[in-house]
């Protein structure tokens, strides 16, 4: 049997069911590794003591019908966890201990999983490198001083470094798929409305979705099956029959029509990414898929649209952090001064920037010029995809325009940081499912990902295409454990 922490979710689950491993052994193995991995700065809050107690409790009376029987899982610190501090990577929630549980995490525990702890992320999920976190940046296990992507950077790093078998992140403009691409892991953003947003710290409510981040496609299908559910507590949750994603997983993609959008060939894209894409296309052909050239004419307008819509929604959502009912409070001579100082001291620079953008585009006299305009362009972007999906079953693109960059490299130029999400943002604007799978490496040996985009509610199809491609690509993420301490 291979080392516990390097096993996939599928292997761990099988080993528990066959009684070859106990929940306690597995839980302790991850905790032991985490203690030696502090250099990566992956955890904001750990739940190790309680996790060991829960694993013993599971072992004393194991329910092997569960889909995640006694499996320890760490989650992004954007999910409210009952009784466990939830910070969203922000000073303003530094001391916040929820008295309720998010629906997607509840779905994990209801299937036997155990909370290992809360993972670092960009503040309020606003960032593409995990550098906006109040709790400091995260090291990418792929190489020293590299960012792990963001905003689910602690999550992607935790999966790549074998600090959790799988995890869940959130994706508003690429926050699952971009970090997955940067760390050689798999990340899926489901269709808007698939996974409940209840209990997730809100960023941009019309774009936010939770999704699985895993070592491979099969694990991804297993985790999606657990977290995707209809929920009365989320008014935009959609009631439809979900697939048994892991049972229906298949490499047979013969005859599937896969679209290649010419607009994703952007200026200054490294040759390696162009080559990665070509390889992906030829693997898809080898699997019997039909390749079709398509056009998504408004692709170039997606990022500017996103940087109106997302900050506008964020400025409204973050209005609740006023120091009155929970979270950090600064002192002031009067109520207004208390609000202003609390928000000034409690939020970091990127969050403030986005609140300011959002406040401006929604302010009197500018609403039509910016917010309404962006909503109209969003319609055009969605229509591009509707048109494309009348001809194809899925779309294949690179996940990101570059591999992981150095810590500090882009922090002084917000716009260059925003460009990271050029291939992922359109999918959120259109509410579609998208998955990033590791597909190769660049000249520095850093991972690169390919993205498969599907029709609404067609997660099974993009999982199957990814499963077939994964088999052909045969990616190996040889990480050296350079960060381990004794």
């Amino acid at each position: 049997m291979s080392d516990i922490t390097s096993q996939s979710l599928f292997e761990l689950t099988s080993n528990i069911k066959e009684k070859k491993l106990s929940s306690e052994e597995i839980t302790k193995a991850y905790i032991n590794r985490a203690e030696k991995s502090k250099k990566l700065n992956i955890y904001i809050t750990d739940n190790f003591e309680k996790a060991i107690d829960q694993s013993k409790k599971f072992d004393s009376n194991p329910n092997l019908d569960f889909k995640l029987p006694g499996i320890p899982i760490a989650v992004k610190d954007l999910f409210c966890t009952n009784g466990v501090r939830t910070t969203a990577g922000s000073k303003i929630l530094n001391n916040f201990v929820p008295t309720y549980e998010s629906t997607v995490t509840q779905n994990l525990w209801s299937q036997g999983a155990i909370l290992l702890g809360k993972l670092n992320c960009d503040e309020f999920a606003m960032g593409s490198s995990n550098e906006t976190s109040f709790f400091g940046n995260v090291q990418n296990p792929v190489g020293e001083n590299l960012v792990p992507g963001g905003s689910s950077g602690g999550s992607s790093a935790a999966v790549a470094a074998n600090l959790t078998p799988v995890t869940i992140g959130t994706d508003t403009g690429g926050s699952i798929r971009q970090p997955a691409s940067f760390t050689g892991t798999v990340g899926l953003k489901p269709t808007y409305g698939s996974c409940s947003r209840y209990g997730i710290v809100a960023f941009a409510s019309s774009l936010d979705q939770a999704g699985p981040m895993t070592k491979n496609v099969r694990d991804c299908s297993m985790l999606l099956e657990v977290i995707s559910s209809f929920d009365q507590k989320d008014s935009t949750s959609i009631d439809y029959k979900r697939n048994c994603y892991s049972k229906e997983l298949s490499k047979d993609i013969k005859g599937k029509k896969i679209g290649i959008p010419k607009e994703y060939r952007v200026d200054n894209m490294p040759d390696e990414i162009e080559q990665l894409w070509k390889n992906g296309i030829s693997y898809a052909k080898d699997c019997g898929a039909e390749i079709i050239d398509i056009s998504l004419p408004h692709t170039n307008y997606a990022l500017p649209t996103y940087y109106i819509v997302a900050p506008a929604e964020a400025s409204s959502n973050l209005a609740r952090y006023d120091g009155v009912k929970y979270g950090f409070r600064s002192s002031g001579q009067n109520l207004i001064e208390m609000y202003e100082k609390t928000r000034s001291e409690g939020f970091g620079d990127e969050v403030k920037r986005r609140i300011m953008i959002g406040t401006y585009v929604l302010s009197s006299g500018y609403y039509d010029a910016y917010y309404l305009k962006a909503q109209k362009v969003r319609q055009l972007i969605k229509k591009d995809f509707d048109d494309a999906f009348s001809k194809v079953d899925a779309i294949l693109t690179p996940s990101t325009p570059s591999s992981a960059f150095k810590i500090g490299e882009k922090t002084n130029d917000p716009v260059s940081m925003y460009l990271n999400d050029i291939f992922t943002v359109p999918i959120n604007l259109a509410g579609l499912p998208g998955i990033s799978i590791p597909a190769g490496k660049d000249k520095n040996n850093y991972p690169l990902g390919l993205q498969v985009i599907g029709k609404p509610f067609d997660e099974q199809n993009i999982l199957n295409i990814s499963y077939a491609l994964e088999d052909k690509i045969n990616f190996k993420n040889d990480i050296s454990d350079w960060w381990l301490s004794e």
Partner: protein
Amino acid sequence: MSIDLKTVKHISKLARISVDDEKANKLKGDLNNIFEFIEKLNELNTDNVQALTSIAETTLRFRKDEIKSENIREKILKNSPEENKDFFVVPKVVE
């Protein structure tokens, strides 16, 4: 279009975030760069396009207006920044 210092101060007031002059100047530069990028949208004619207000093509569900959680007073007050078992405490509002 460019955003001047006065506008930055005005937005910060609306957003209830206090900024000093140094921060305001930095924000002015950042916001102008971002808006230059955003204004690419003006290239598009959207006169006859309907705004997309919801990506999930469903109408919101109705439900009965009923109380589902009871005795949660303690839970709600638990994270209150200033301790008081009965109320949220704020600076004096009425003289």
